[in-house]
């Protein structure tokens, strides 16, 4: 617990400034079978997302007459963490699956596909903090890759308080030893929040600052998502010509 998370020159354990993201590399269209897919390396966090649908609802009674059903599964590989994790879904994974679905669903035009289902599967291959944020941001790209009509992308990042300082894009060590953690997801061009969670102690002032920092981070993630879409579909477009 005595480990310093911020060094004397104001840098973090991996050399970042307080408001700096880790290197983020998105790849789109990485799976053959899925209708849409994306992969991210977000610092040492590695996540693969596959999207199926809109497709026929199964079991059938789940189908809704006026809209598409969205399902999401967040799942961690047993080898993704230091001590092997049982592959059975934990309570944490079940809760995260729910909030991830609720973070993505506002962006999807569900009313266009009545009686169908869209399944979003996020597999965490290596976890090093902010996995739900990385999963959401990557899933938004996989949905776009599947051709699902969306209001906007969803971009997400977490802000933590470590050693009394608010820091952007929490890595594992900062999450474990820090005082607070606040993941936030938003539709950047609509300025709407689709996910917010928080634990730890924050004053009102710190909370307001956290939100501002998270918003800045989401905008940067958004730029990287757009860049990834642009380069993927520009190359793909050329092949078709």
């Amino acid at each position, binding site marked *: 617990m005595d480990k310093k998370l911020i060094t004397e020159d104001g840098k973090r354990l991996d050399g970042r400034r307080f408001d700096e993201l880790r290197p983020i590399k998105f790849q789109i269209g990485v799976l053959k079978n899925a209708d849409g897919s994306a992969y991210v390396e977000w610092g040492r966090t590695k996540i693969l997302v596959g999207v199926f649908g809109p497709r026929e609802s199964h079991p059938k009674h789940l189908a*809704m*007459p*006026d809209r598409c059903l969205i399902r999401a599964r967040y799942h961690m590989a047993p080898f993704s963490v230091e001590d092997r994790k049982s592959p059975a879904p934990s*309570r*944490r994974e*079940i*809760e995260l*699956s*729910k*909030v991830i*679905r*609720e973070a993505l*669903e*506002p962006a999807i035009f569900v009313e266009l596909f009545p009686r169908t289902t869209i399944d979003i599967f996020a597999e965490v291959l290596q976890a090093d903090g902010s996995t739900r944020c990385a999963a959401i941001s990557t899933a938004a790209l996989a949905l776009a890759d599947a051709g699902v009509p969306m209001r906007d992308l969803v971009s997400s990042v977490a802000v933590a308080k470590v050693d009394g300082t608010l820091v952007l894009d929490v890595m594992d060590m900062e999450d474990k030893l820090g005082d*607070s953690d*606040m993941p936030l997801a938003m*539709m950047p061009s*609509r*300025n*709407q*929040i*689709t*996910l*917010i*969670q*928080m*634990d*730890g*102690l*924050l*004053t*009102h002032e710190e*909370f*307001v600052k956290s*939100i501002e920092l998270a*918003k800045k981070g989401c905008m940067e993630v958004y730029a990287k998502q757009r860049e990834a879409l642009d380069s993927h579909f520009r190359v793909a477009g050329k092949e078709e010509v």
Partner: protein
Amino acid sequence: MTNQIIPAVKRRQIIELAETGKRMDGRSLTDLRKVEIKTNVVEKAEGSATVKFGDTYVIAGVKFEIGEPFPDTPNEGVMSVSAEFVPLASPGFETGPPDENAIELARVVDRGLRESKLLDTSKLCLIPGKKVWIAWVDIFILDHCGNLIDASSLASLCALLTSKLPKAEVVGDEVKVLDEFVPVPLRAIPINVTLAKIGDKLFVDPSLEEEEVMDCRLSVAFALDDQKQEKICAMQKGGVGTLSFEELLRAVEIAKVKSQELRKLLPSGEK
């Protein structure tokens, strides 16, 4: 749930009424329903409480058991919160293992209790690395009429506040539990407040019919620091709608004021 068709008519009615500052059950947008707390309702539990928010009815019980600590915190006791949506509470609840709603509820309640550092788990250690007290907090939903998170948080809190810890003597590697009790080591007390967003309005302590048509909800837990200042200790958005940044800040402000109101209702001697 039994009926997935959104009652669009009711939603419009609720929004129109909210324009005049009123709600279907006669409350203003920021009114809580009548809150009733009863403690020590189950003698065999080390702590218990029932809480009503209007017709919403929840019971929470605390049992202490000796068990092993987590490997990364060998000197600390353990707290575990679970929730059961028992079938008598709603036509929509079915028997079976907890679904995502029950799991989310338990984890949101847990986060409030844990992050406020309510239980001083360092004082629940018996033999470091081997034996510690485990506080099992179990929530049963008895009647689901909306806002289960706040009712369950308050019931769990009151059960813990009024619980008694068995006295234990450690002799070598043996723990002997005595027929005496000591107060549970408690610190900052968390109070959770949930608001529903419907249209562009925020509704404190949403009823079931409001929850059925809401865009989303936001739950915020507050704890007092040493200077008696409110700090935010946990937060959760639920539901498929969105919040603007302005709405988020407004909701947190309202929740803070309402948490002060709920804090006054705690069993005597607590604050």
